[in-house]
């Protein structure tokens, strides 16, 4: 019980620190929150353009595709608010060598870097995305059944695990390739493809987005679950995939930590 209490206390302190920082720069954060909402609106444009000519794309109607986009935006809000800030924190730590101080603390380093920073104002973004989802279901003229909703929620958990695991993999690479700015940019660019239902992609890309960088598991499958279109086999695949990724990420992280040689001073 003691470790659990220790980590709960740590999480509380880390969140308080992020909040204190956020309050210091509240103007920036409000501005960024507003900008994020603006970008959310912008991301809808390609979808509107494509669907202005056609009724359905790869078997997805406009409101259905909107569910994917809404889901994608929810995830992106979580990514921007809870994951990317910590990523930047670690990358800077590796570059400046201040990650040393994290490694000298008697707590799991992965936990510490993962909870280092949050951007609380991203909650705006998150709420905006929920609104898009709600609108999509309004257009569809129905609501997900309780069962579908629960599966969707579970897959949301899987999606978070996947996102987080991929992120840990990126961080692990940053231990070796110190200049990782491009890497996080690449990560975000690839993630952007998640706004499209997986059926839009063909061949190799489709395989990559299912297995290597499992966007399908992160956005398409949960959206399908909400729409009541996901088979249980796929749901199982998503669950297993999430756990496998988490295990791999933990393993790679452990090895990377071993290889880490702090910046020379």
């Amino acid at each position, binding site marked *: 019980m003691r470790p659990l209490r220790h980590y709960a206390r740590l999480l509380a302190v880390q969140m308080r620190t992020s909040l204190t920082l956020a309050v210091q720069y509240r103007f920036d954060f409000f501005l960024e929150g507003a900008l994020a909402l603006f970008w959310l609106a912008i991301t809808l444009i390609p979808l509107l353009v494509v669907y202005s000519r056609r009724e359905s794309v790869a078997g997805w109607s406009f409101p259905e595709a909107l569910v994917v986009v809404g889901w994608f935006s929810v995830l992106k809000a979580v990514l921007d608010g809870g994951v990317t800030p910590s990523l930047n924190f670690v990358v800077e730590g590796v570059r400046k060598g201040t990650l040393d101080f994290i490694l000298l603390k008697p707590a799991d380093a992965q936990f510490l870097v993962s909870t280092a920073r949050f951007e609380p104002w991203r909650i705006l973004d998150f709420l905006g995305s929920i609104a898009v989802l709600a609108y999509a279901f309004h257009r569809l003229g129905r609501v997900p059944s309780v069962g579908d909703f629960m599966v969707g929620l579970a897959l949301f958990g899987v999606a978070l695990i996947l996102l987080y695991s991929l992120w840990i993999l990126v961080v692990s690479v940053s231990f070796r390739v110190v200049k990782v700015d491009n890497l996080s940019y690449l990560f975000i660019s690839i993630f952007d493809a998640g706004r499209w239902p997986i059926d839009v992609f063909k061949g190799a890309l489709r395989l990559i987005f299912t297995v290597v960088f499992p966007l399908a598991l992160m956005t398409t499958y949960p959206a399908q679950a909400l729409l009541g279109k996901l088979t249980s086999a796929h749901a199982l695949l998503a669950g297993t995939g999430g756990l496998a990724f988490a295990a791999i990420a933990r393993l790679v992280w452990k090895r990377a930590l071993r290889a880490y*040689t702090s910046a020379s001073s």
Partner: protein
Amino acid sequence: MIRARKLCKTYRVHRRPPGLLAALRSVIRRRYEEVRALVDVSFDIAPGERVGFLGPNGAGKTTALKILSGLLYPTSGSVTVGDFVPQERRTEFLHMITLVMGQKQQLLWDLPPAETFAMNRALFDLPRREADATQQELVDLLEIGPLIGKPTRQLSLGERMKCELVAALLHRPKVLFLDEPTIGLDVSMQARVRDFIRRYNESTGASVLLTSHYMEDVAALCPRVIVIDKGHLIYDGDLRTLARRIRPEKRITMHFSSVPAPGDLDRLGNCVARSELQATLAVPAAQVTEAVRAALSRLPISDISVEDPPLEEIMQEFLDGQSANGGARSA
């Protein structure tokens, strides 16, 4: 407390050649260069001891401290600190040590030091009352009470270092690794940081291992020094003994009431500094009494003092001598 045996650390550095074409080629065929940062370094440090690591830039001091604190794996050789192998980074081990680096800070830049203290208290899972008492004690000792509520970025370098020390000592470590803790500080701030470290050592019985390239800094704090040069341990012992061995001489500084005749001065010893009414002579230690007596009787002395030659100079001579005879070891 600390035991290092035949410690070696070799960094493998990827060489990036200049020019785009060469850089592209190097992506395919990576060329590695080996930097031998530590070569067969062995030493023991007892509990409560204060030991200084001396050596020029790039000697391997930081590397040694990083290995001792578990941040780096040694390429070969073995280390134990207490009963622990640092690289395993066990919880008990991390509770026992601390590392302070003059060139890196753990204080959160945009927040007051008090926030970092709170963070460290949570990280080390310190009971509240105990942590309050320790923090208060350290803050009082360093006289930084009014500072810990100000954002770190508004503090001066010296103030920041004091706060770094508090952050690093809240968990009352038994072994202190201090990497250039006085770098960039002015002389009086250096002295205060040194004083604080000595008091912490004396009151808690913690071992202190400190690196610096300021000789005086180390001499004032550490009865024992370990000199490293190009990764080799070249001396382990008392600094004054080393100084006496390298330069068994004293400096006699004289002030005159009138300009002395030049011949009189030269007969007394080797003149290393000279102005109109002042002169400094280098005299073999054994002949100091005689030289002072002669000076007093022959020269128009208004003031006279006898000192050791500056440590920086001695160390330079020592290092030059070592590289002249191929880095041969002696201790």
